């Protein structure tokens, strides 16, 4: 049975070296990446992102991101939105410091006690957001943008040629994606070819129960707006039926 690629959350920290709060953003991001949620998060390199790193930009288009900024200038959140997509969530260190009545944050290279406390609080909040974004709380998904292509003038159809429809994610992760026509536009669904293959090998054949299960599994990797659930279910049922016909013909 194929292993499905795991959905992860991208962490973008401002890392502003000239401010203690920038160091808090960096330390908090590393706490999440290395200790709190090492298997659920990846770092998005802000300088590379700004310099045009296509892999990082593509990742942030497909996966939810959390921006951690030191100050109200919000460089990480703005850069993410400017070059890729709106972050699913955003945290500003100065807000956390003020909200928790922490003492003055000092030290750019080495944080003082208040700075380390702020980093702990920010890291815990980011970890909570990561849990939400990974589907442990459904309502968070509505904030995540759906990866879609430009709306077509006419209702498009998913490419007939399976080779054309199924490709690898452009973030370079090797994750298979499939383009599917939903509600008059073409939506790129992450991991769908692997999900279909897993269902087929498990002996699940097209039908209402399978469609419901497909919808839930697809939702783990892709944000599905509540108002479009029916359209997604219809599209998944259609595409899975096509998939099963082709697999049966080849066996």
């Amino acid at each position, binding site marked *: 049975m194929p292993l499905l690629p795991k959905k992860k959350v991208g962490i973008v*920290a*401002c*890392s*502003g*070296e*000239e*401010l203690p709060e*920038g160091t808090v953003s*960096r*330390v908090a*991001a*590393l706490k999440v*990446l*290395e200790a709190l949620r090492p298997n659920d998060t990846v*770092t998005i*390199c*802000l*300088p*590379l992102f*700004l*310099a045009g*790193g296509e892999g990082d930009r593509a990742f942030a288009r497909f996966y939810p991101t959390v921006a951690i900024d030191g100050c109200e*200038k919000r*460089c*990480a959140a*703005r*850069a993410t939105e*400017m070059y890729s997509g709106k972050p699913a969530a955003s945290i500003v260190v100065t807000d956390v410091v003020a909200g928790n009545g922490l003492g003055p944050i000092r030290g*750019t*290279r080495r944080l003082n006690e208040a700075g380390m406390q702020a980093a702990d609080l920010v890291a815990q909040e980011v970890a909570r957001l990561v849990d939400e974004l990974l589907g442990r709380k459904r309502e968070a998904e509505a904030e995540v943008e759906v990866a879609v292509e430009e709306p077509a003038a006419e209702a498009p159809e998913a490419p007939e040629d399976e080779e054309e429809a199924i490709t690898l994610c452009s973030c370079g992760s090797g994750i298979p994606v499939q383009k599917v026509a939903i509600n008059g536009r073409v939506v790129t669904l992450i991991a769908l070819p692997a999900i279909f293959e897993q269902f087929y090998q498990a002996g699940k054949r097209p039908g209402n129960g399978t469609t419901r299960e497909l919808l839930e599994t697809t939702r783990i990797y892709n944000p599905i707006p509540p108002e479009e659930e029916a359209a997604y279910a219809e599209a998944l049922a259609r595409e899975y039926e096509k998939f099963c016909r082709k697999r049966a013909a080849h066996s």
Partner: protein
Amino acid sequence: MSGKVVVVPCSGIGKTFGTVSREAAYTVVEDLRPDRTELVALSLLVLGDEEARAAVAGHPTVTIDGCRLACATKMVQESGLPVARSFTVLDAFRKHRDLKPEGISALNPEGQQLARALAEEVAAAIDALEGEA
């Protein structure tokens, strides 16, 4: 700020070489040449922050990149600002093969020594720049 040399590190947080570049920048600005240098964050420059651009404008700028992608150098240049000298951690490591850096949150002793060696090289370049002025 008048007369100070601006130091811009790469800001990468996901790899060891980024940590070395930042540690080297802090060593220059806080320990070796505290009165003659100023640290400016790359993201502020790239996103057009007026204060950051004003700090850099008219001052020699030295970039310290983690790797060959040279994000700091490229982006300072793309912001329309000249780079007086650029350094990379990778080049420094080639000169000091015995100092293999490890760790991201906290550098190993070799990484700290590499950052120090790079910082001293940067400080010497800053002295030379001031001599040219």
